[in-house]
C-alpha cells in the first residue's frame, strides 16, 4: 500500500493543459483511491496528455496534480514509486532486453547487481527470460511489448501506469498481457490503464474514467456508466416473432421514438427510454406475448458511448 499524505492514489484539481492554443486536457478534477482504474477515450481524447501530467513529464497550465500525495512534476521521489509503459515503442534495437531493462533499472537508483537481478525477475514475469539475451531488433511486436512492460515493473513500483498496453497485440499476446495485469492487481497494487477500447480493460477493472476532447466526461463503475447512458437516445435491434405488433405496441406506449421493420423478423427501434424498453420487453416475453430471439444495441461501440456522453456534457440531451 502506498504512503501518500492524503491517502489518495491520484488527485487532480482543475487541471488544464494547453499546447499553445490547443487544449490537451480541459479542467479535469478527480480523486482516485488505490486500486485499478481504466482511462478510456477515443484517440485524441487527452489520455496520453493526462498520463504525461501524472508521470510529471508535463506540468499543468492551470491546476495541480498530486500522485501518491506528491507533486508530480520533476519529482524523483515519486518517480521511484511509479512504473510507466508509454504508448510509443522507443526501445534501442541494438541491445538485448536484459541489457535494456537492467540499464533502466539502474537509472532507478539500484546498483549493477541488484538491477540485473530485478531485470531478470521482471523478464521472467513477462515470460521473456528465454529470449532476453537476443537483440530487441529481432523481437516480435508482442515480445517488444512484454519487454516494455518488464521495464515498467522491474523496480517494483507501487503504481503502474500503462498507456495502450494492448495496442498491436495479437489475441494470444492480449490474453497473456491480461493475465499478467490481473496478477498485478490481485497482489493489491495500483494500476492506471489507458485504452480506447472498452472491452480490453473491462476484464481488469470496473472503475473507469471517460475522457473526451480533453474533458472528463464521466467516472465510476460500469454500472454507473450504464445508468448514466440508460436514457440516452439509442438504437436497439430486436428479433421477434411478431415485429409489426411489437412496433405498434412500442409506439403506442411511447417507448419508441421511431421504429423500422427490417426483413420479416427484425425491428430497429430508436428510443430514449432504453431501460424502460428493456423492462417492457422482459414482461412481454415472460407473459408469452412475444418471442424475442435476439436483442442488442446497435451503437454500443465506445465511440458512440463517448458521443452520447458528449451530448450529455453539452446539454443537448
Amino acid at each position: 500500500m502506498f504512503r501518500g499524505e492524503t491517502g489518495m492514489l491520484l488527485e487532480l484539481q482543475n487541471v488544464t493543459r494547453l499546447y499553445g492554443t490547443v487544449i490537451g486536457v480541459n479542467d479535469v478534477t478527480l480523486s482516485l483511491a488505490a486500486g485499478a482504474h481504466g482511462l478510456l477515450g477515443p484517440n485524441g481524447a487527452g489520455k496520453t496528455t493526462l498520463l504525461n501530467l501524472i508521470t510529471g513529464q508535463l506540468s499543468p497550465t492551470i491546476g495541480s496534480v498530486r500522485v501518491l500525495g506528491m507533486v508530480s512534476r520533476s519529482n524523483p521521489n515519486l518517480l521511484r514509486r511509479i512504473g510507466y509503459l508509454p504508448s510509443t515503442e522507443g526501445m534501442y534495437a541494438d541491445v538485448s532486453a536484459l541489457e535494456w531493462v537492467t540499464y533502466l533499472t539502474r537509472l532507478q537508483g539500484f546498483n549493477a547487481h541488484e538491477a540485473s537481478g530485478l531485470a531478470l525477475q521482471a523478464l521472467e514475469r513477462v515470460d521473456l527470460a528465454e529470449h532476453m539475451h537476443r537483440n530487441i531488433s529481432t523481437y516480435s511486436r508482442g515480445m517488444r511489448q512484454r519487454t516494455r512492460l518488464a521495464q515498467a515493473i522491474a523496480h517494483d513500483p507501487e503504481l503502474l501506469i500503462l498507456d495502450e498496453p494492448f495496442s498491436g497485440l495479437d489475441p494470444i499476446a492480449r490474453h497473456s498481457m491480461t493475465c499478467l495485469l490481473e496478477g498485478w492487481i490481485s497482489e493489491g497494487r495500483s494500476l492506471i490503464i489507458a485504452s480506447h477500447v472498452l472491452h480490453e480493460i473491462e476484464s481488469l477493472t470496473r472503475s473507469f474514467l471517460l475522457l473526451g476532447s480533453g474533458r472528463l466526461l464521466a467516472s465510476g463503475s460500469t454500472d454507473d456508466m450504464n445508468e448514466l447512458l440508460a436514457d440516452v437516445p439509442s438504437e436497439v435491434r430486436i428479433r421477434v416473432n411478431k415485429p409489426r405488433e411489437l412496433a405498434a405496441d412500442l409506439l403506442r406506449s411511447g417507448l419508441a421514438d421511431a421504429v423500422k421493420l427490417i426483413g420479416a423478423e427484425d425491428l430497429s427501434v430508436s428510443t430514449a427510454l432504453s431501460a424502460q424498453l428493456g423492462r417492457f420487453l422482459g414482461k412481454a416475453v415472460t407473459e408469452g406475448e412475444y418471442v424475442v430471439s435476439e436483442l442488442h444495441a446497435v451503437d454500443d461501440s465506445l465511440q458512440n458511448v463517448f458521443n452520447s456522453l458528449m451530448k450529455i456534457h453539452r446539454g443537448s440531451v
Partner: protein
Amino acid sequence: MSVVDSPRPAGNAAFNLLIGTIQRIPPVVWFEWRRAFTISRLAWMLSLMAFPPGLLFLVNMAARNEPRVEVVSILIFILCACVVCMMSVFLWATPVLSSELEGRSWVYLAVRPYGPIAVLIGKYLVAVSWAVPVGLVSATLSVFVFNAEDRGHLIAVHSGLVLLSCLAYSALFLLIGVIAPKKCMVAGIIYTIIFEVAFALIPAAVNMLTVQYRLRCLLIRWMDFDKALAERNPVFLSYFGDESSAWHVGVLLGMTAGYLIVAGIILRCREFTAAIETES
C-alpha cells in the same frame, strides 16, 4: 533490496539532485560505451584519426624545405584540436537529445529519478572519452610526420589542447543540442561557422567568448610564440591577448561547466514530451 539513495528533506533538493545524478552517471557511460562500440563507428574514428597525419605527410612531401616549428604547430593545432576534435564531438554530442526524442526512447529515461541529467552528463563523458583518444593519437602521429626538434614538447602542448578542445566543444554542442533539439545539427553548424570561425577571428571583445580564441591563445603561450609575435607586430596581441595560460585554461573549464549547467537547467525545466496518441 534497496535503492542507492533515500529521500532527504526538501531543503536538500540541490544536494539530492547532485548526488542522485552522480550515482546514475556510471551506468549511462557504461551502457552508451557498449552501444557505441560498433565496427562502423570504429572505422569512422580511425579515418578521422588518420586524416591529419595523412594530410600533413602530403604537405611535408610537397614542401621544399622542412617547415618551421611555428608552421608545424599551427597546422597540427588546426587539424587536430580544431577539425578532428570539433568534428568528432560535434557528431557525438550535438544529437544526444534529438536522437532520444526522435527514437522516442526519451520517455523511458525521463520517468527515471534524475534520469535526464544523468543521461546528458553520461553521454557527454562518452563523447569526450571517444574524441580525446582520437585527437591524441592524431596529434602524436602528426608530430612524428615532421622532423621537429622538441617532439616531446609539441606532443604535450597538442595533447593539452586536444583535451581542452574535446571538453569544451562537447559541452558547447551538447548545449546547442538541448536548446534546439529538432534542428540541432543545422544549429551546430551555423553556430560553429558564425562564432567559432568568423567571430573568433575578429580582434574584438566578442572573440573572447569563443572556445577557439582560448585554444589559440593557449597554443601561442605554451609554444612561447607570443614574444616573437609581439616583437614582429604588436597587432598580433589583439588576436591572442595578454592573459596567462592558467587564466585561459580556467576560462575554458569554466565555459565547459557553464555550458553543462545551462544544458542541465534547460533539460530539467523544459518539457520535451508532446502528446502523441496511439493510432490503431
